[in-house]
């Protein structure tokens, strides 16, 4: 890259002020410049107001309500006797064995699912970026798992894993890989990983498609230059391809981490959190306490803890997104 075709920032004249800046500056009188009137200076904010109000209505109000609920002992079937308990729910959560089990499993769930979805997606994207005669069809087919509803995926995989009638046991038996059928979803040592596999299958197309889009933006000259410099295919992958799509990968990883951390539908359909607590994750546990037990206060506190943990990831994502806007 010594020829300066890529890499470094483009140097040139300072960018001129944006259209908005020019417009505002040009319309200001000398008096305005000293103290801009509220009406004119606030115009952009008036335009933003409807969006802010809608966001507040559908996001901030429920969040505030959840926070308020988390401080109460609120049973859905006994709303008249709801009482303020301060941080009582959180203190109870710290002593709750199931919370810690769910937290540990959430960690395995997020790292395992997102990590493997990414690896599989990357491999699929690299393959789909090659030239072969049925590439168009392959690109369409790969999206199918992503397009299926989670409940269908949960049911489909439940039957594939079925102890008596499942296709996975059947094939493994015929191939001599196992001597007897395995109850994949009923064994605490396999249940969580079996569900993770289903979710990895569902989510890898997201990475494949996103990374594929990123790959198509990498200039061909970079590869030509690398080839001239004698780079092997592996070197091209690590020194050209991956650095060029690093931004895309980072954004996709952050987004998917947030989604996977929150997802509970496939687990709910496949095992309901069992056997025992073997497939409990934090969002599922919060859901079960709110839905089955109708303990809305306790469920809200669990959900808030999950939200607080995810805020770090959300912050990183928002910072990246904001950088994109500023650039």
């Amino acid at each position: 890259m010594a020829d300066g075709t890529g890499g470094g920032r483009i140097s040139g004249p300072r960018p001129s002020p944006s259209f908005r800046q020019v417009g505002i500056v040009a319309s200001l009188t000398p008096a305005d410049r000293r103290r801009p009137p509220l009406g004119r200076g606030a115009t952009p904010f008036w335009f933003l107001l409807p969006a802010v109000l809608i966001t507040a209505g559908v996001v901030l109000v429920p969040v505030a309500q959840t926070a308020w609920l988390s401080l109460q002992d609120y049973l859905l079937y006994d709303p008249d006797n709801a009482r303020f308990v301060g941080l009582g729910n959180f203190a109870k959560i710290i002593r709750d064995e199931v919370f810690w089990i769910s937290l540990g499993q959430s960690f395995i769930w997020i790292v395992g699912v997102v990590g493997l979805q990414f690896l599989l997606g990357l491999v699929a994207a690299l393959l789909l970026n090659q030239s072969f005669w049925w590439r168009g069809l392959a690109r369409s087919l790969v999206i199918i798992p992503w397009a299926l509803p989670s409940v269908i995926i949960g049911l489909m995989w439940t039957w594939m894993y079925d102890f008596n009638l499942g296709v996975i046991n059947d094939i493994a038996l015929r191939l001599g890989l196992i001597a007897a059928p395995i109850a994949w979803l009923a064994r605490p040592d396999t249940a969580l990983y079996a569900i993770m596999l289903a979710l990895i299958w569902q989510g890898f197309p997201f990475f494949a498609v996103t990374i594929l889009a990123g790959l198509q933006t990498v200039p061909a000259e970079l590869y030509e230059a690398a080839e001239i410099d004698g780079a092997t295919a592996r070197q091209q992958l690590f020194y050209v391809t991956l650095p060029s799509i690093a931004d895309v990968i980072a954004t996709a990883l952050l987004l998917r981490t947030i989604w996977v951390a929150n997802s509970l539908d496939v687990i709910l359909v496949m095992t309901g959190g069992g056997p025992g607590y073997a497939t409990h994750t934090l969002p599922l546990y919060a859901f079960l306490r709110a839905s089955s037990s109708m303990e809305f206060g306790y469920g809200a506190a669990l959900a808030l803890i999950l939200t607080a943990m995810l805020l770090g990831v959300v912050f990183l994502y928002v910072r990246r997104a904001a950088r994109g806007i500023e650039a």
Partner: protein
Amino acid sequence: MERRTFIKLAGATALATPLARPALAQGTTTVRWWYHFDNPQHSPAELVAKFEAGNPGIKVQAESIPWGGGNDYQTRLFAALVAGNAPDCAMVRLSWAARFQQMKALAPIDDLIAGWAGRGDIADNIWTINKGADGKQYYLPLQYVVLYLYYRQDLFEQAGLKPPATFEDFRSAAKALTKSDVSGFGLRGGAGGFDHWGPFVLGGGASFEKGGMVSEKALAANRWFVELTSKDKVVPASAPTDSFRQIVDSFKAGRTAMTIHHVGSANEIVGVLGDKVSAVPVPRGPDGKGWTYFGDESNAVFAVSKAREAAFKWCAFLSTAENNVVLNKFTGQLPIATSAAKDWTLHPKRFVDASAASLPFAASLPDSPKTPDFIARIWPANMQRALLGQIQPDEMMRAIEQHFHG
């Protein structure tokens, strides 16, 4: 028509319409009813049309609510009640009654039942089971099922066995019938499986009274039940999470020789196994005591309803003989009206007989606000852990005792 005349006429019509509407609508009461059928393709439209024809002043708005193992339906109903958007009446279960009472969602309907001609067509013991804790009636019975034991007649005959009447008969038969690819008993350890645990543990001496789960008898009965999996190994390896679909399909596929369910699955099972399958009441414990689950379904009229009497009329209509038969065609359960049950032909007789023979010792779960959580969360989590050896069977019983009595 001239333009001016047209405008005059249009204006007059526009003015007259809102005036005419109240006159037409006067006297019409709308009853919102929530229901669930296992088969979503079934619709109560035929019953609604018949009712509306016989009761011109009442419109019924029947709303199908997803059942979701009971949890979805229940949560939506309670959420609707809290939000002030509850239906006038809905299909309900006895195990929710205490929660309804706690939120004052129901009002007694004794006065309305007293004036209903179909009252005498429902057996006295059903009215007794359906009574509230204060002795008043809040529910109008609609249909029922009783859990019994399905067994493979052919396999029993080949092994020279009789259908089990006691726990020990049951264990011996399960052991004898367990082969490499067949398990003696299709145990349900997943959602709803308390109705497999109940016959052996509640029937073996446990109870929901204070201390009833941790008595010597109760603990011994639960250990015995867990040993069917851990020691005797007469259940499939998937039993800890098997639910309705798995136990029925395994039984149909010949992978299990016995299982416990109700008449609702009889036609489906007979469709595959024919005369190879029959049913008897669940076995009884060492002291002759038995317990099986009375799967009830009633209608309740909510206290907030502004159409209390019209809603009751609709519910009473559904529990009346011939209408009750039509409804049970859709739900696959048994009619609550005695006259309708007499000539019941929708299920093979042997399964209806097994249901009737189980009624004397059938019971529902305790009338407590904690019962739904016991069914949905406490029982499955602890049962599965006990079956998998993650906790001792006694710990499971202590967790249930703790749940109900602190």
